[in-house]
């Protein structure tokens, strides 16, 4: 395989950047929508996008930050938090974006009906 392609795939930094930029755009667009239409769906979408961005940044940083010493320092409760919190953030972020999109769409339909 092409060496450059392999490095880009294994590190995944370019693709992670794409994803984070996309999520940031979703957040900005959601804030703009909630300002423009005064709909709660936009705020919900913005919260979801922020949660997904936080989880993604954690997954990018985790291999460098979370070491054995770090885990020993934060204790068993903190260790289980490092496992539970990112997946919870991912789940709530996705649910928030979908829920917000649904709310916005329903609000638009009610407006134009």
């Amino acid at each position: 395989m092409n060496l450059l392609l392999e490095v880009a795939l294994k590190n995944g930094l370019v693709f992670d950047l794409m994803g984070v930029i996309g999520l940031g755009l979703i957040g900005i667009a959601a804030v703009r929508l909630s300002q423009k239409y005064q709909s709660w769906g936009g705020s919900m979408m913005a919260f979801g996008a922020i949660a997904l961005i936080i989880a993604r940044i954690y997954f990018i940083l985790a291999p460098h930050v979370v070491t054995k010493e770090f885990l020993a320092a934060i204790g068993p409760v903190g260790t289980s938090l490092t496992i539970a919190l990112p997946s919870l953030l991912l789940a709530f972020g996705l649910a928030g974006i979908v829920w917000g999109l649904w709310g916005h769409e329903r609000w638009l339909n009610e407006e134009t009906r």
Partner: protein
Amino acid sequence: MSYEELQYLSMSYGTFPPLGSIAAVRPVFLIVMGVFLMVIAWRLVKNTSGWSAWTMISGALLLGFGYSIMLPLYEAGLIDRLSSHGDQSTAMGWHAVKIFTMNGGWLLFGIGLAIYANVFASPSPTPRRTTAIPPASPHEFTT
């Protein structure tokens, strides 16, 4: 999910048993979310046209494929992860598909939503000054 798998999950997650049940529900949640995302994106852009609709729909399709088909397959263990001791080239290919689908999907969806929400337009568009052309006087060319 069999008892051995549950036991393995609870072992790999340490002393955190409720997460085992979350791990069991997660694929269903992902499938529902992926399908919902596609349906709602389609309903949202049904009446609009242009770049915003196409970008948003393609992003939503990529995300829907990723969330409702690929990630559950990963969680079910039907696709080898890159770190597992399986066929490395196949795992690499699926890994490439996964990171392209998830990140490209979010990027396209974000761009589409941003165009839809007029993010790229200037926030307070100044109305273009239209100079009123005075009606040509009938005497203009006659003198």
